[in-house]
């Protein structure tokens, strides 16, 4: 056997024109699908706006501050103020409950209070909260939470009718808590360990470090998570529809029924006709704009954090 003669490479041919063409075709197809996502977003916004146009022309901006919602033929009047109020109130209330609980949970899970194995299980359980279908929360709310609340308020002699802003907000807070926890935990875990070590080295306690170093450093991630949760709360439909009472009134009491834009849509779309469909589309468009603003802000804030510690 002679040594030293290298075997020829398996193939020294250059790629044929067809192969190059196929390559371009493949990249082009992939790009088309990627751009399809952007097209889809634009289509959602445009289609809703176009279908809402009759109502936009008819009611204009006063739609936003009118409280009548009467689909009866000949006496139609549509205004979305009680639903905007209900949407904002339930979201704010659920954030009020979920932010401290979610942040506390995130801190507990990102520190080493308990062994990593148990923490992994707890992280999984918190994630599971987000996976349970909305309609199951609704069912549970009707048959478990509302009777329980009735009993509680009964102890203090407060009358509680059942479906209400409070019941909806409570269930909503359970549903958005995992979002706040997951994103806060991620942004806390992404901090460089030197921050913590430096703080401990200077003699700070664990919670001194958390409040003075870790939370300020991760704040944009935490705020981004809260914004995402707010977007979710504003658009959440089924559980809220089943628990909020669907009354198109503005009531200052949290124990009274109310309505949200999403539950208005869920309740009325299947039976709507004529100008009512347009009015519902107008309401949907307002919801799209509200969630869009919140989500764009969230995206921007989360990106800012990534830029800081990459």
């Amino acid at each position, binding site marked *: 056997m002679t040594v030293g003669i290298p075997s020829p490479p398996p193939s020294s041919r250059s790629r044929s024109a067809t192969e190059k063409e196929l390559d371009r075709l493949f990249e082009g197809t992939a790009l088309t*699908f990627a751009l399809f996502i952007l097209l889809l977003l634009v289509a959602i916004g445009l289609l809703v706006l176009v279908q809402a146009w009759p109502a936009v022309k008819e009611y204009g901006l006063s739609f936003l501050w009118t409280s009548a919602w009467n689909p009866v033929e000949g006496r139609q009047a549509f205004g979305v103020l009680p639903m905007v109020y209900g949407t904002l109130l339930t979201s704010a209330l659920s954030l009020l409950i979920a932010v401290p609980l979610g942040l506390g949970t995130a801190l507990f899970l990102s520190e080493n209070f308990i062994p990593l194995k148990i923490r992994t299980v707890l992280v999984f359980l*918190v994630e599971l909260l987000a996976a349970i279908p909305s309609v199951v929360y609704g069912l549970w709310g009707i048959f478990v939470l509302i009777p329980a609340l009735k009993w509680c308020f009964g102890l203090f002699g407060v009358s509680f009718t059942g479906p209400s802003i409070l019941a909806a907000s409570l269930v909503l807070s359970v549903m958005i808590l995992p979002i706040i926890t997951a994103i806060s935990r991620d942004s806390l875990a992404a901090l460089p360990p030197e921050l913590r070590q430096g703080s401990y080295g200077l003699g700070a306690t664990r919670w001194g470090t958390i409040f003075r170093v870790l939370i300020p450093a991760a704040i944009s991630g935490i705020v981004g998570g809260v914004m995402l949760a707010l977007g979710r709360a504003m658009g959440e439909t089924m559980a809220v529809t089943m628990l909020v009472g669907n009354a198109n009134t503005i009531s200052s009491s949290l124990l009274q029924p109310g309505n949200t834009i999403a539950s208005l849509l869920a309740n009325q779309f299947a039976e709507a006709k004529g100008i009512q469909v347009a009015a519902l589309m107008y309401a949907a468009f307002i919801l799209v704009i509200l969630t869009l603003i919140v989500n764009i802000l969230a995206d921007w804030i989360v990106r800012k954090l990534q830029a800081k510690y990459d």
Partner: protein
Amino acid sequence: MLANFSMDNFNSQSLKINKASRRSLFNAIMTGLSAACILTALVPLALVLFYVTVNGFNRLDLDLFTQLPPAPGLQGGGIANAIAGTLIVVAIATLIAVPIGVMCAIWLAEFGGDDTSIDEWVRFGVNILAGVPSIISGVFIYGLMVKPALPGYSALAGGVALAVLMLPTIIRTTDEALKIVPQDIRWAALGVGASKYQMVLKVVLPAAVPAILTGVTLAVARAAGETAPLIFTALFSPFWPNGITNPIASLAVLVYNFATLPFKPQQELAWAASLILVLLVLASSITARLVTRKR
């Protein structure tokens, strides 16, 4: 100045932790509070799982899987049509969302780096799409397919509405699955003379399939529980599924419709349907967890 730090007047007590000091107390209280937070957060989960299991278990019999729902107020029956309907609608959604989502993710992971501006716009679009409320997807499909009667209230419309919601999950998980495939494999494939499409389709994609399947499973389980996009696209039907251009029953809409009926048998069926949905979500989440841990 330096003299202050000499060993002679160094107070070694200052290195000991004083358990009664204000900051130690604050530490202990805050630790307790954060533990209380996670306990409070898990109470609703335990309660929901408990009540769904207890109330749903009653009706978990053979009839549930083989019979149609009874007329309002009557006993017995099952939710077989809703189970079949959910399978059909979710299958339609998966068939639409997986090819689109995977191709989009392939562009992001394999070609996106070449042109960062489009790349960023698409990623931004996926994030915004993930934040679109589920009911808006229903409204969109209502305007696109139901109102112009193309083909009106139907399994197909419901499936497309769910597909819109599944897309972001599938794109994100596929994108991440492709990114963890080692770069060397790509270079090796190109080095032995593969074209880029051959490299992606025959080398990178097969390596990422387990992780992609995990993501698809999660997306499917979530879609099965989605109600809002279906209530005015797929609507509901008390009968067996009848083609994909007619209204169709689904578990999620059944829970919504039956929960508000004043009849006990219907409410029991709603609990049973909830139990099936929760079990589906549990099974897929646990599988996903196990698969990702193995890597």
